[in-house]
């Protein structure tokens, strides 16, 4: 076995576009990438929760990150992309503008994230990286999904979690 120091380990990220910005997420949390299909609407849900779809027998919610973070009224066509992510046992589909690439980053290449300037709240960011002059914002999907930011889980569950946490 070749000795690899921690700084040489490459972590793989899936990059995706949202507006003018490029984001990256841990590829291990991506279950699949699929086209947007008709959803079943959910009453009294915020606009960015499009509804639920049938993913091989699982009832999976679809969140449009474009509505949530860019505040636009997007179009849906056959090129609309959904990234299905898996965090623990939960599946969530996220609509984004497009999926670009898979990149490998070493720990040294990941810089701390800024506190401002991007669509995502800094709570949900895990760092910044630069590849070919393009800034990539790394998203902490787990934090995003388990917060009540997206309204995906019962509020009591969030409250319990936060009460038990460091806050």
């Amino acid at each position, binding site marked *: 076995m070749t000795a690899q120091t921690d700084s040489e380990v490459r972590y793989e990220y899936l990059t995706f576009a949202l507006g003018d910005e490029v984001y990256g997420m841990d590829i291990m949390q991506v279950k699949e990438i699929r086209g947007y299909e*008709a959803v*079943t*609407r*959910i*009453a*009294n*849900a915020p606009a960015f929760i499009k509804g*639920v*779809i*049938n993913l*091989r*027998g*699982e*009832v*999976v*919610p679809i969140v449009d990150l474009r509505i949530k973070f860019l505040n636009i009224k997007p179009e849906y066509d056959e090129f609309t992309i959904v990234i299905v992510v898996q965090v623990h*046992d*939960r*599946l*969530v589909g996220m609509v984004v503008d497009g999926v670009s690439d898979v990149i490998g980053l070493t720990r040294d290449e990941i810089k701390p994230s800024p506190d401002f300037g991007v669509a995502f709240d800094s709570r949900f960011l895990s760092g910044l990286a630069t590849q070919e002059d393009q800034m990539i914002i790394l998203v902490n999907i787990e934090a995003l999904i388990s917060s009540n930011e997206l*309204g*995906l*889980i*019962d509020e009591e*569950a969030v409250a319990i979690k936060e009460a038990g946490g460091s806050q």
Partner: protein
Amino acid sequence: MSLDLSQFHQVFFEESQEHLDTLENGLMSLDIDAPDMELLNSIFRAAHSIKGSSGVFGFSALGQITHVLENQLDDWRKEVCRPVTEHIDEMLVVVDDLRALLASYQAEESIDEDWVNQRIQDMETVFKGDAPASKAAAQTEDAGFGFFEDEEASNEDDQGFGFFEESEESAYSKDDHQDDGYGFFNEEAASAKTEPAEDPGFGFFDEPEPTTTQAAKTTATVTPASAPKTKAVPPAANATASNQSIRVNVDKVDSLINLVGELVITQSMLAMMGKDISAIRQEKLEAVVEELQRNTREIQESVMSIRMLPVSFVFNRFPRVVRDIATKLGKKVELVIEGGDTEIDKSLVEKLSDPLTHLVRNSIDHGIETPEKRKELGKSETGTVRLSASQQGGNIVLSIMDDGGGLSRDRILSKARERGMPVDDNMPDHLVWQLIFEAGFSTAEQVTDVSGRGVGMDVVKKNLTSLGGRIDIESVTGFGTTLKLLLPLTLAILDGMAVAVGEETYIVPLASIVESIQPSKHEIKTLSGDELLDVRGHYWPIVRLHKTMQVDTDCQRLDEGIVVLVESGKQRFGILADRLIGQQQVVIKSLEQHFKRIKGVSGATIMGDGHIALILDLASMAKGMKEIPAMEAAS
């Protein structure tokens, strides 16, 4: 390199549980007058397996205790001595201890060695005693059991011997000692402690001596002078229906069920698409699709059946429960079990055990009278509790019937008044009986540790309701009480009516539907702005599904759509939808798995075209509604 055994622990725990169940059931159904060799052997094998594998895993306390148990069983099996009630009682206690130990090992708690040693000593004292002769004599006096008296020859044993020699593996039959019963007994028990490592087979004997011919003489047991009557001897359950089975993780089964569900949906999509193909091809395609449909349906049915277990999984523990409770309360109870092979969903099996135990306990404590009282009343001294299961349509009916005193209407009513509940003397019986499910309601004259604290019936009812079931009571004073539990066959499937609203589909649980009507204008009335539907003299408030679910639809007016009249709890209301799609069985999927609970929705299901339909939660829809007083229309 040492093999990591921990990966096998779970299997060991599960298997040991099963062996303990076998042990317990076997002991319960053992007829001490004429022990069934087959049964004794299976009890022995269960104990032996536990001991063997606990040795492998290093669960020594488990092994040590089981070892003593096994020795005694081996003596019975070899007819060195006969089973007596005291020993069976002790063994049942040991089974409980073993369960506790198993749980401790499973939870990786430390084991109290002193306790284990003490237990082993206790057991040995009970099973053997230092002076068996005097003990045997004492037993003879106490209970009239004439065991251990080797002077007398057993007449019954003769028929056992032929069987003995045939059925025993040769290793056993050569193992018999020449000693008489006592010598063997002492020696054997003494060796129990000093013999931790035995050969894995059947080596319970220090010096096995090949004396097959002696076998007949060594087993010097005696038929009791008078047939002993045990207090609560339930009829033996199915003796040995050895079903071949394999152990499969439930997750695997569930994922199989899901996949097959998907297959069914894909299949129906294919069938739909097949309709758009040119005429010549279409006929052929249709035939193939039909074939596919048959096959997928069959696969689905057989996969669904994997999850089903016979009710006997729940029932089998009751002989023991009944025996324990009856003994504790000094009552004589016979338990009759019927319909144990009725199949129910595995998840129900697990959740039914506690409520049923509670109800059976209640039947014995509150229902069955004491032997003296029963005699006075001209009933047989032994009360009967009948536990039965049957399938009726889409429901499983479990009933617990006792021939005791029945519920006391007066006592329930006075108790209810005491607690300030709104009751009156003219209430119909079935409403009075339902009062016992109120929290903190107990009419037992004496609070015992078995029941009477009034904690439980309400919990029982709550548990059953959460399983989608209900409970009915029939009771006749002086003749007994019957509790009927109605449960859905499976938790995974619901009979529903699919209704369309705009482009969406919703499922209304069929059980709650009273009827569906297309209202005409003159049936629609308004009461302070709210529309009410007059159906044959009753006014029904209306829930517009497109409004609650925020769906766009052209069908806005009551007389344009269809109203499904439903009843949920005490609330009755009508649900306005565009049209009915049809009645169907749907597979319930949880929304909470990946999403969260949504008001007015109890779950989701996947329709034939692959789309998701939401299942309406009528109870929560009803909650948001104004109470409409029950009014009779003037006309």
